[in-house]
């Protein structure tokens, strides 16, 4: 009897070097490929992972089972020793392809040759974002506003690392020699590198400070969530199962982003109250308190929202249509949508630029899938924004954070060649130049935020610009030592 078949369903097999619930011990070909890939991954982690904390003990959650009730186990671990593994959501034996031309067929357990290139491309693009964000965030540990936040950063980082493993497993298991080459490529590209950049724009931007990190996890990781939600619908069952499990982890990233920004808002509003400042635009006075003024937060949100929208690609897209029709990538909550799941005749309203005006135009729904996913994303973002506004309201400050127009500051899609204000007015170049500093973070804003980024590593203490969380991770007490920093 093999180790994997002796392991209870849902549990993770730790008998191999790579924890997994996919029976790697019986799959020598893939196990060997992954073991060969492993040293390169560790080299990458050491060179590109969190800078300065590789030998610190971090209180991290490790997945030990895919059972939704008990999959997380918390303990101190040195990040390079984190047990990255291959974890797929449980297989549903009767699962079907739920949309597109193959609707109703049994879900594919192997890659259909016809869609191999398409699937590989999707997996590589998704996979490329995972290590990219680790690279973007590698210097943030040094300016962490608390051990709690530092731990959350590292949790996000190791999970992005695990998501990379998840994609590499698919490449190794189902895509042969090309898959192995692509898996190596994922370790060779570097965020922001001129010669070998990451594949998508937002993943080559810098994450210079913690506010950017929180905004990134709120806005950009949420794009990741939407993409994973669509891929989780895939007729290619191993990808669906992989993405479903990744989504449980991605939820934590959203949490870090939303509560991170929320705590910054809370601290700013509290400091304004204490100092008797009513006007949220009295920026100099507010900044003098050592907190981030709300208009600057709005600018950061404008920036990260617009960069993240670009990740959805062109509103009308042949690729997206092909992915859907082939049964490879579905819609957000596909199985809960009430329609024919084929979209051969349906239309969907797409916001377009018609003679200088933004107008909704009905397009074939099949080619408008990027637009639809982006709409779902905007709704999802708005939920978080509403919760931020509740905090502001509760503390009695007269300010609301708002999502900018989808036409604002775009580099991809329908609005890439026009300038628009956050409220969606089309602007001349002069108007844009005049307004830009009010809408996007300026160098001065960046310098100010950078000036706040002083590390605060004392147990239970938080930097002045951010409030303490309501509850600790794993219900730990306020002064819990989330990271035991190894000095020297």
């Amino acid at each position, binding site marked *: 009897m093999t180790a994997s078949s002796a392991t209870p369903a849902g549990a993770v097999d730790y008998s191999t070097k790579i924890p997994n619930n996919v029976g790697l011990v019986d799959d020598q070909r893939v196990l060997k490929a992954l073991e060969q890939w492993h040293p390169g991954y560790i080299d990458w982690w050491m060179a590109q992972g969190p800078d300065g904390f590789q030998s610190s003990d971090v209180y991290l959650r490790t997945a030990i089972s895919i059972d939704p009730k008990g999959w997380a186990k918390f303990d101190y671990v040195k990040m390079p020793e984190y047990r990255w593994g291959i974890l797929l959501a449980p297989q549903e034996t009767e699962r079907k392809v739920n949309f597109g*031309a193959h609707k109703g067929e049994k879900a594919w357990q192997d890659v259909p040759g016809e869609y191999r*290139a398409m699937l590989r*491309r999707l997996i590589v693009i998704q996979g490329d974002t995972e290590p990219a964000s680790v690279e973007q965030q590698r210097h943030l540990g040094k300016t962490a506003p608390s051990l709690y936040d530092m731990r959350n950063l590292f949790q996000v980082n190791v999970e992005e690392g695990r998501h990379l493993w998840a994609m590499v497993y698919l490449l190794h298991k189902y895509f042969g020699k090309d898959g192995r080459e692509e898996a190596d*490529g994922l370790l*060779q*590209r570097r965020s922001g590198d*001129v*010669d*070998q*950049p990451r*594949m998508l724009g937002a993943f080559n931007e810098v994450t210079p400070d913690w506010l950017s990190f929180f905004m990134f996890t709120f806005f950009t990781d949420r794009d990741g969530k939407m993409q994973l939600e669509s891929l989780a619908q895939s007729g290619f069952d191993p990808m669906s199962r992989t993405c479903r499990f990744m989504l449980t982890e991605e939820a934590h990233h959203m949490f870090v982003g939303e509560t991170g920004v929320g705590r910054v808002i809370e601290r700013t509003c509290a400091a304004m109250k204490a100092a008797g400042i009513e006007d949220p635009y009295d920026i100099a006075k507010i900044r003098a308190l050592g907190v981030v003024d709300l208009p600057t937060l709005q600018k950061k949100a404008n920036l990260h929202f617009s960069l993240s929208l670009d990740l959805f690609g062109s509103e009308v897209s*042949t690729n*997206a*249509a*092909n992915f*859907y*029709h*082939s049964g490879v990538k579905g819609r957000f909550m596909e199985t809960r949508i009430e329609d024919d799941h084929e*979209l*051969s005749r349906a239309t969907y309203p797409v916001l377009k630029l018609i003679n200088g005006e933004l107008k909704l135009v009905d397009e*074939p729904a*099949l*080619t408008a899938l990027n637009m639809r996913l982006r709409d779902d994303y905007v709704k999802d973002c708005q939920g978080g924004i509403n919760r931020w506004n509740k905090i502001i309201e509760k503390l009695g400050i007269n300010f609301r954070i708002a999502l900018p127009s989808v036409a604002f500051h775009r580099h991809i899609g329908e609005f890439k060649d026009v300038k628009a204000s956050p409220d969606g007015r089309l602007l001349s170049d002069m108007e844009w130049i005049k307004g830009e500093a009010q809408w996007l973070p300026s160098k001065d804003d960046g310098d100010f935020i950078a000036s706040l980024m002083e590390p605060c590593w004392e147990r239970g203490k938080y930097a002045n610009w951010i409030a303490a969380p309501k509850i600790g991770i794993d219900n730990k007490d306020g002064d819990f030592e989330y990271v035991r920093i190894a000095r020297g």
Partner: protein
Amino acid sequence: MIDFQTTPQRYRHWKLQVDGDTAQLIMDVSEDAGLFPGYQLKLNSYDLGVDIELSDAIQRLRFEHPGVKVVILKSGKERVFCAGANIRMLAGSTHAHKVNFCKFTNETRNGMEDASAHSGLKFLCAIQGTAAGGGYELALACDHIILADDGSSTVSLPELPLLAVLPGTGGLTRVTDKRRVRRDLADAFCTTEEGVKGKRAVAWRLVDTTAPNSKFQAAVSDAATKLAATSIRRSGTTGITLPPLARQIEGDTVTYANVRVEIERASRRATITVQGPTSPVPASAGEMVALGDQFWPLACARDLDDAILHLRLNELDIGVLTFKTSGDALAVLAHDALLAAHADHWLAREITGFWRRLLKRIDVTSRTLVAQITPGSCFAGSLAELAFACDRTFMLSGNFPGDNRASAAITLGAANFGAYPMSNDLTRLQTRFLGEPASVAAAQSHSGKPLDAETCDELGLVTMAYEHIDWDEVRVFLEERASFSPDGLTGLEANLRFPGPETMETRIFGRLTAWQNWIFQRANAAGENGALKRYGTGQKAEFNRERV
């Protein structure tokens, strides 16, 4: 009407920047400036309008910028070099337009290779981003290809997997014949939609080198310097200007300075009359340069080239083109002789090259080509090549009643024995006399003398020599011709015009184009549920699986 005349000031899609030995030809296609409504030229995709500008730019590099040794062809857009011919344009075009479009783009790319081989104008292709389909085919027409090694820049020929058609501008042929890619690797390459990047692209010989983005400009400059060293062009040479042609379209007549086109719509015929030189031949190369665009061989070639393209694209129903000439045979020969005497002079070289390409353009024009050689004509030397390009030649023996001019003659010259090879690399006379090489020598021995109808008939230079009482046979022939299937004629003529050896060009125009045109007509590509029609809808094509 599709107009083939343009100038750099009017370009919508290209920028031509000349700096000493080097020119940058930057492709930056305006999405909304397609030739027809109904499609957007996204991602540097092109239509005929884009290619007309490219062709014009190359022509200007030949004549207006003779000091340029290397053209760096690159994209003005980020992350995309060129996505090839616009699919929606192809899907929405008539079959005739698709074929004409492909033919013209093929001629432009062949013209780039011709410029490299004969004019010393070298092409360096600098690819950052994706070069897909026609985008990679454009690169294939260059002498040297550098691909950015950034993990995402690729070259590809995705036509078959994506659109169920073939690369239409020589891609398959250049991959195997020019770049000598191994056939099994070529097969893998042409069925991989996403293409090939980096080291593998070099290993498979799809590109010459790769360079990382940070060293890309340096690599391009280095390669440009090396390519420039292989050029026969001289730095600092001053060019001539190519002003717009004096063209008048009135009713069914198109008039140029040296060419007149008369269309007879009812009988679906056009007569193209070429006027021989009317001013004396320049005494020196210097005088030739001073005449510039007014120098007869150049002026005449420009007129005729535009006329042929006009008939091809704008007069689809005109099935028979009759060539006539008018003027002094000796003057034509004198101009030919001047070009030959100054074969090493840049302008003479460019004009000879222009005629070579123009005659090839006529060779591949899918209309019945007829020459009528009558008194007052000047089928001599280079203009006699027009007659040898034709499917049938009719010559009048003697005169029409009341005409007391000298009888019709053909006068052979050096131009008929090497200056203007066809795409099969043989002269038109060598091709004509493929089975009787001695006839070429016999014809050559008569060079320089006006040959009357009987002699031409004897030498095999004409199809028929008729006396005026029988001249009505020509009408009968033309009427009979008009009754045949235009498709059958196109196939027949294309097959009979190019006997003899295969070259890359004949393979591109013969085999590849014929296959492509067949595939373009099949339901699997062009039917309601075919790949071209379904492209962009997200729905997959439905194929008739029968292999034919």
